[in-house]
């Protein structure tokens, strides 16, 4: 029994609460940015807060942004999603651009944990004309046919067999003989 599923779960693509069917609801509920006011490792987070945080909050009104200044702690961001999942990312020595990138990653995710997808599509209606079964392409005549039947009993014509080909070759040689003058 493989324990692989313990480390990297696999599954099929899905969305929480049929998202996108009725309307699209952004799934990121809250994001908490923890940083230290003086430590060099939080410099990127501090730059981000000073410059882009307001603009980020305006573009994502559906997400609450919490800032948590903690002395002598490594910076990190924790995202909480509507389906209850929490995602932790350490932002130690991140640049401002990296913080922006990872924040946009957190915003566009759906909270479903990262997994290996077994298939790249998901449909609840795989077949409309009915799944193939041995009866689909069978002609109903087979029910009332009396065997041996002139069409159904005929073997699938796989082309001339070897003996037929030999006979043909022999016939071709036959025709040439009478033309030759008698010696």
């Amino acid at each position, binding site marked *: 029994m493989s324990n692989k599923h313990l480390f990297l779960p696999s599954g099929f*693509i899905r969305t929480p609460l049929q998202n*996108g069917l009725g309307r*699209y609801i952004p799934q990121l509920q809250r994001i908490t940015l923890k940083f230290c006011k003086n430590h060099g490792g939080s410099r990127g987070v501090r730059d981000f807060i000073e410059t882009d945080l307001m603009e980020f909050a305006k573009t994502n009104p559906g997400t609450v942004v919490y800032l948590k200044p903690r002395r002598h702690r490594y910076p990190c961001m924790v995202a909480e999603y509507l389906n209850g999942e929490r995602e932790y990312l350490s932002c130690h020595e991140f640049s401002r651009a990296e913080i922006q990138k990872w924040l946009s990653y957190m915003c566009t995710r759906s909270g479903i944990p*990262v997994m290996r997808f077994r298939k790249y*599509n998901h*449909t609840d*209606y795989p077949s*409309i004309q009915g799944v193939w079964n041995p009866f689909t392409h069978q002609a109903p*005549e087979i029910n009332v046919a009396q065997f041996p039947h002139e069409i159904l009993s005929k073997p699938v014509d796989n082309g001339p067999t070897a003996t037929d080909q030999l006979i043909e070759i022999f016939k071709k040689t036959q025709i040439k003989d009478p033309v030759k003058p008698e010696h």
Partner: protein
Amino acid sequence: MLRSAASNNFEGTKLNASQPTSVKPQQEVLENQQESEIAITKETIEKVNSQIELNSHGRLFAVIHLAGKQRRVTDGDLIMIEGAHPADVGDVIRAEKVLLLGSRDFTLIGRPLLRPDLVRVEVTVVEKSLTHTKTVFRNRRRKNTRSINFCRSHFSIMRINCVRLEGLVDQRPEIEGVDGRVF
């Protein structure tokens, strides 16, 4: 490209058997075949058009070409697009490359694509995230040389909102491919 309503082989063979076996001048044989074919064509197109008008064709499925791959989609499906896709979360895109559209009773096959004014497939971007960490590991044997690269590539999950037939099959609008474009 339409097929006659006769769905399987054997009814067809009866049709052939009923045709006059004695060889007639070529033109005439073609003539009466033309009549019956035109009648069948008109009748088939009439049936499909009536289903389109009454919207009684049931669920539709389409084969669309999106981001390099062909996918069979129907209403409400989820598809995954690998690689960075320009559309952002919540955007609605219209998939224009529709190769085939099918329902329970008829199939419209594009050569290679169906007219854009005939079919409308709308797609909403529901999630944009990174895949799980894939390892690219190279090992040169007995040379104590190994290299490992970790990669998380972009992907987007999209919801198919609707697969809809908008025009009749044989009526072409005067100017084609203009809808929705601003001049």
